């Protein structure tokens, strides 16, 4: 008798398309910022301070989303800010993922003393308050892109290590791992060819989630003025500035906030969508 579950085909989720489209748009914006940004993001014009977005009366033509208190174009700053956000998301996300997943995989599959060492280390690491840790780190290393990325990796690798360890452990108990051993495969070979492909969907989902988190952390650090120098536009920095003048010029706060929100949401939705889509196993 045939298994009815095999006949169920899954539709490609709208969320995969929507989140993918938003992120693609963002990548495009980041790459082409110098070409498409209407103004120089750093150019100040104190006569044009706090101009509202185009649909509000009193708007200045050419400044679509208005200007901040120093007369800088909000749209241009958001576009340039996307560069930094995406660099942080990609580099910090991948590094965190690589370090955490590797350690988690080793701990979960090899068990024994590697697991004991890694797990203890993770436990101790997680006992530090993360934000304080990051602030301390940047205070020591000095602000800058590299510091931010290191801070994110240092804070968040444990998330990967824990989840991947648990996943590798449950996969390790499956009989196909025993059958690889019966076939004479080495431990290391089994880890790479049998376990890794089966934890990969989880890793991908976590990775995209982490990219969203990296964007948030960067924003938080910018917000407390610990990110990149104030010259280069960042979303977090814009939000921090916008906060001070929210009653006079709400758009300075709201537009970067919406962008940030959509980006983080898209990253997490993309991960879930990809996991569903590329998992050949119907669970």
């Amino acid at each position: 008798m045939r298994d009815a579950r095999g006949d169920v085909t899954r539709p490609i989720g709208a969320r995969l398309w929507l989140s993918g489209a938003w992120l693609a748009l963002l990548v495009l914006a980041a790459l082409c910022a110098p070409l498409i940004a209407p103004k120089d993001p750093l150019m100040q014009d104190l006569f044009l301070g706090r101009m509202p977005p185009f649909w509000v009366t009193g708007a200045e033509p050419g400044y679509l989303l208005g200007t901040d208190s120093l007369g800088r174009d909000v749209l241009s700053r958001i576009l340039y800010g996307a560069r930094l956000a995406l660099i942080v998301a990609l580099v910090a996300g991948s590094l965190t993922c690589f370090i955490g997943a590797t350690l988690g995989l080793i701990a979960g599959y090899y068990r024994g003393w590697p697991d004991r060492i890694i797990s203890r280390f993770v436990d101790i690491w997680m006992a530090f308050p993360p934000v304080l840790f990051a602030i301390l780190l940047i205070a020591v290393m000095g602000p800058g892109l590299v510091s931010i990325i290191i801070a994110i990796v240092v804070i968040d690798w444990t998330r990967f290590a824990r989840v991947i360890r648990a996943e590798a452990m449950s996969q390790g108990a499956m009989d196909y791992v025993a059958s690889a051993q019966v076939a004479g495969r080495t431990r290391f070979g089994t880890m790479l060819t049998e376990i890794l492909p089966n934890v990969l969907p989880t890793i991908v989902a976590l990775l995209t989630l982490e990219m969203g988190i990296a964007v948030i952390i960067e924003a938080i650090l910018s917000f407390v003025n610990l990110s990149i120098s104030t010259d280069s536009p960042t979303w977090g920095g814009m939000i921090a500035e916008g906060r001070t003048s929210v009653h006079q010029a709400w758009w300075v706060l709201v537009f970067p906030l919406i962008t940030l929100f959509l980006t983080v949401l898209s990253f997490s939705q993309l991960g879930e969508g990809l996991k569903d889509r590329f998992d050949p196993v119907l669970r």
Partner: protein
Amino acid sequence: MMYEIRDLKLSFPDISRKPLLGPVPRIEVLKGLSFDVPKGVVLGIVGGSGSGKSTLGRAMLRLLEPTGGTIRFDGQDITHTPEEHLRAVRQRFQMIFQDPMSSLNPRRRVGAIISGPLRLHGMTDLRSRVNEALDMVGLPRNFATRYPHELSGGQRQRVGIARAIALRPEFILADEIVSGLDVSSQAQVLNLLEELVRDLGLTLAFVSHDLSVIRRLCDRTLVLHHGMIVEEGATAALFDAPQTAYTQELLAAIPLPDPDQPWR
């Protein structure tokens, strides 16, 4: 002799009863088993849950390391052989697992599942060997491109059998391989196994909780209870005149599809 097993003992640490200080207590799963498996014989290993029958099977294939006694495979002591030296022997004994869903890597196609072990043992001509193995278990050759979840339970178990025989081993351990299947596919898989054993001259150890299946397939039967051998003998004799109370109780408890069986 394919296997000579003497005073085999195996215990696991019992972490649930770990004291604050001092050594972890151990649970003895196999309590000193001695038996032989002659070449060309189909040996049934039967017992209830917790009897240690699966542990015994895994110890015989050295997926577990015994804590005492010796296991000789074709005259060679493999009791404590480290994994890197075992690899040369591994081609000679293979295993078919209980749950084909968990023993077949869900992310591999059937062809890759069967050819994986072949490649590891340096065999060439993989494609034709995979095809041959699929032919032998009665699956169409185009199944090589399918994923395990696209197959039915009986077909998956055939893939498990194909993977084991593709290496042309001398000994196969079959661990509860039909207990997850419907009776109609059960019969097919057992018939197939019977044929393969005959055609390839295999020695087979068949671990099962189902005495009716053992009776059909096996030449000799070993009854396990609480990690000890309760009874061992030629299958027909053991079923016709069980010597121990435990075997008698086991046989009497089986509900036969026969309303006239005295069962209550």
